[in-house]
């Protein structure tokens, strides 16, 4: 896993609630057997017509909005456990997703792939949406070490929570398997109990 560095980037706004993993990556695109390439079909049915033409009104097709940070309405990533959703978001080029509420499995999947899900209050989410809709070039700075997200133009900052272990995994690029494997003896002992 790559190490998570401090990020300053404009954001891509998706002010919709309950975005489920079937919207993030529809099931018919889960047939690949590698982790790569899912970004092409990220938000497929919102992004393209049935004849595969881009829908101009969808935010990913609007050149006004670019960046490494996706912001979305509450209960982001609900539904299926497909990790392909996290892979699609990462493959497209997002390193951070901000919402006021995340579904559990998606949150875990994102963290296991070096994508940082940041939960903020409804109020702070509104502030971010307001800043990006006022000026598409407005940027956020994500400082994982300090656990802050800052709206750069206003210097409005929010302190987010993250499990200390997961934080160190992201910063150092470690994954869970390395950690569990370092307890091999205890696993054997447990099995012999």
């Amino acid at each position, binding site marked *: 896993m790559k190490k998570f560095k401090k990020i300053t980037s404009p954001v891509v706004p998706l002010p919709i609630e309950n975005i489920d993993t*079937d919207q993030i990556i*529809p099931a*018919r695109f889960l047939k690949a*057997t*590698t982790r790569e390439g899912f970004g092409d079909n990220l938000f497929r049915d919102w992004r393209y017509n049935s004849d595969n033409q881009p829908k101009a009104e969808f935010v990913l097709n609007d050149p006004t909005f670019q960046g490494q940070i996706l912001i979305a309405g509450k209960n982001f990533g609900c539904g*299926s*456990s497909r990790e392909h959703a996290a892979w699609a978001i990462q493959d497209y080029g997002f390193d951070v997703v901000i919402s006021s509420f995340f579904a*559990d499995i998606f949150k875990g999947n994102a963290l*296991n792939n070096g994508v940082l899900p940041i939960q903020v209050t409804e109020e702070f989410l509104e502030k971010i949406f307001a800043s990006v809709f006022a000026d598409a070039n407005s940027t956020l700075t994500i400082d994982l070490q300090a656990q802050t997200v800052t709206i750069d133009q206003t210097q409005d900052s929010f302190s987010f929570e993250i499990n200390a272990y997961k934080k160190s995994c992201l910063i150092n690029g470690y994954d869970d*398997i390395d950690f569990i494997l370092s307890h091999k003896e205890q696993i054997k002992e447990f099995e012999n109990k």
Partner: protein
Amino acid sequence: MGKTLVEKIWDAHVVKSQEGFPDILYIDTHLIHEVTSPQAFDGLRKRGLPVLRPQQTVATADHNVPTLNQHLPIQEELSRYQVDMLTKNTSEFGIELYGLGHPYQGIVHVIGPELGITQPGKTMVCGDSHTSTHGAFGAIAFGIGTSQVEQVFATQCLLLQKPKTMKIEVNGELAKGVGAKDIILYIISKISAAGGTGYFVEYAGSAIRSLSMEGRMTICNMSIEMGARGGLIAPDQTTFDYIHGREFAPKGEEWDQALAYWKTLYSDKDVTFDAVLEFDAADIEPMITYGTNPGMGVGVTQNIPAMTTLPASEQPSFKKSLDYMGFQDNEPVLNKPVDYVFIGSCTNSRIEDLREVAAFVQGKQKAEGVEVWIVPGSKQVEAQAKEEGIDKVFQDAGFLLREPGCSACLGMNEDKIPAGKYCVSTSNRNFEGRQGPNARTMLVSPLTAAAAAVSGKVVDVRSMI
């Protein structure tokens, strides 16, 4: 101070717990299928690791398989490749596969219980969010992502934070025509699609106790649809009777030992749950969803909520959802026309579901213009249905009994609902495009689905029984 059922099972599986880190939790049984496992097997190869406990791992092909002509090679190239990969991977890593053509093949959450693999007190995982189904037996069972599938392959363990616990009690008697599916759709409609997030739910109360194992599985199956990590029900005589004698159930002396342990699996009287919710079974009528998440459900005689009853912040998403469905706010769901009826999925494809539908449609005909697909949960369910003559009942009614698989629940194979069409479905998700691009899904119980099939529209099944 006593322990909740979740705590009892959790604590019995903690390999290591240390301050500042998640627990290392031992996993007894790992179920896998073709869609969420290939990248995990690849990961093992890259790390040069074996599957630590292949004999605790069981594989089947379900998500991608056709439900007609399963004896022929899979037509769709990518699906065939993915199913072939599962065969190769399980053979290379020494895992038992109940693949296409095997008499045990079926939807992973149907075969685990019917083979007696699912047992009280176990920890069970699968790269599928509906793994919560197995909680019906008093197991800690939950869905995981592919990175975690790889972790379990490599270590038979997962790194996890102990979840918060919620108790949902449903007491009282269910009205005729109201079943397990209506209970769970009702609960989700009350607490929303995110109401259980962060929790492991224990279902309790007399209405839950009165359910068969199949009904309990339907309830636990949809725990994820309220955002919960999992759901479970304390085992009782109904549970033990169901497991006894099944293929992989303990036998002889081992059975006696297991039973003695299983009887200790309940939440102690003096425990405190992080949240407690109570519902009255008498308030529940046959349920149906009108929107694009499972929380958007109403009693079948009620109206879709009026936009003005919702907080302003939720109105745009609500409107988007109704626009997708082609519905108006504040209008009745009764008499909405139906194009397709799908009876299947890990929620409602067990023999009891098929029996209930068959008993209802006996001597009736499907309505003109409605297409009805019945997809059994497993080869064993299919065989049982044929043995009981249920297949003939369906045939006479004009219903098509297909072969086992996940099918139109998620439309990964050919079984897709066409754009714009309405499908009354016994599955678990009504997300946009879930059953096919622009398909419109209304979630219901098997009985309500059967009533829609013979009526050609949404009806109150209570008026027909």
